[in-house]
């Protein structure tokens, strides 16, 4: 892993690896956290970059039936930065954009 805790080789990722990373961080990967991790992975594979926060919120409302989902909902899942942290558990590089 690099100094930010991201896997150096995304090819090393598996759900077991994500679970182990979360265990070390004392974070439980509940269903919503797993949904965000998988969504970020899918978005990265399809578009070559992680999603905007507003995109993740929109998708969460659509996919999880969470009509009141907002950026606060995402921050409750990963207080240190929802997209960045989801990328880390998803085995993706640290988002490099300053958006």
């Amino acid at each position, binding site marked *: 892993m690099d100094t930010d805790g991201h896997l150096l080789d995304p090819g090393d990722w598996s759900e077991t690896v994500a679970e182990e990373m979360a265990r070390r961080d004392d974070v439980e990967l509940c269903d919503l956290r797993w949904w965000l991790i998988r969504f970020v992975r899918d978005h990265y594979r*399809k*578009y070559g*970059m992680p999603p*905007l926060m*507003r*995109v993740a919120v929109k998708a969460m409302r659509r996919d999880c039936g969470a009509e009141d989902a907002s950026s606060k909902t995402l921050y409750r899942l990963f207080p240190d930065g929802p997209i960045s942290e989801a990328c880390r558990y998803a085995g993706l590089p640290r988002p490099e*954009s*300053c*958006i």
Partner: protein
Amino acid sequence: MSTPDYIALIRRKSSPDILPGLEHELHDAIQKHDSSAVFLHGDGVEMLSAIASAASSDARVDWCVCKTSLERRSAAETLRSPFRLATLTAFYESVLLARHVDSWGAGGKSFGTRALASGASEASHRLLLEVGFAPLDQRQHRETLEMALGAAALELDVSVLFFGDGLAHLAGGLAHGWSQVTDFGLLDIYVEGPIDRFQPEVAVQRLDTAGAALLRAGAVTILTL
């Protein structure tokens, strides 16, 4: 960035043939306003050393450099006063409030200028991003896309107008990044004029010359990327 009267966005590569003109235009514009911000983004970051001598420590001017653009080019470089790191989010928040915005885009020789229309508010601030150049490399493509995503992240009323070689951004292997814009309805993408060399692989709205003129006329701010 605070809320400057005037903002200059510079995304052009530094070159001896354009630098004197750019410095002259920039100096004149800064002198005409009470407060200004100059934002270097993308290849514009390469202007840093070229304009460092012209950059003053005048407190009325905020010299900003895109953090990510700089990291991609010279991660180890230490930014020296009066320059400071800034984000696209901060840039767009300032654009909404500025009275005058100039942009030196990556590909064109012209620059877009638009004064804030009388009575225009933040809520009615229609922003148009114009792209008329083909990206030289993946990085330039990515940073043009990030300019659009930066505006979309703030849910601004923004459209992107591609024309000429700019359509290359939407074709071939480069298109997938832009697909997220239309797949999630982040902003409107327009194409002006005939589509010949580059076939867009992203859902776009086609405009003739008159339609593009209307789009430009309806924008409060036009940024030439």
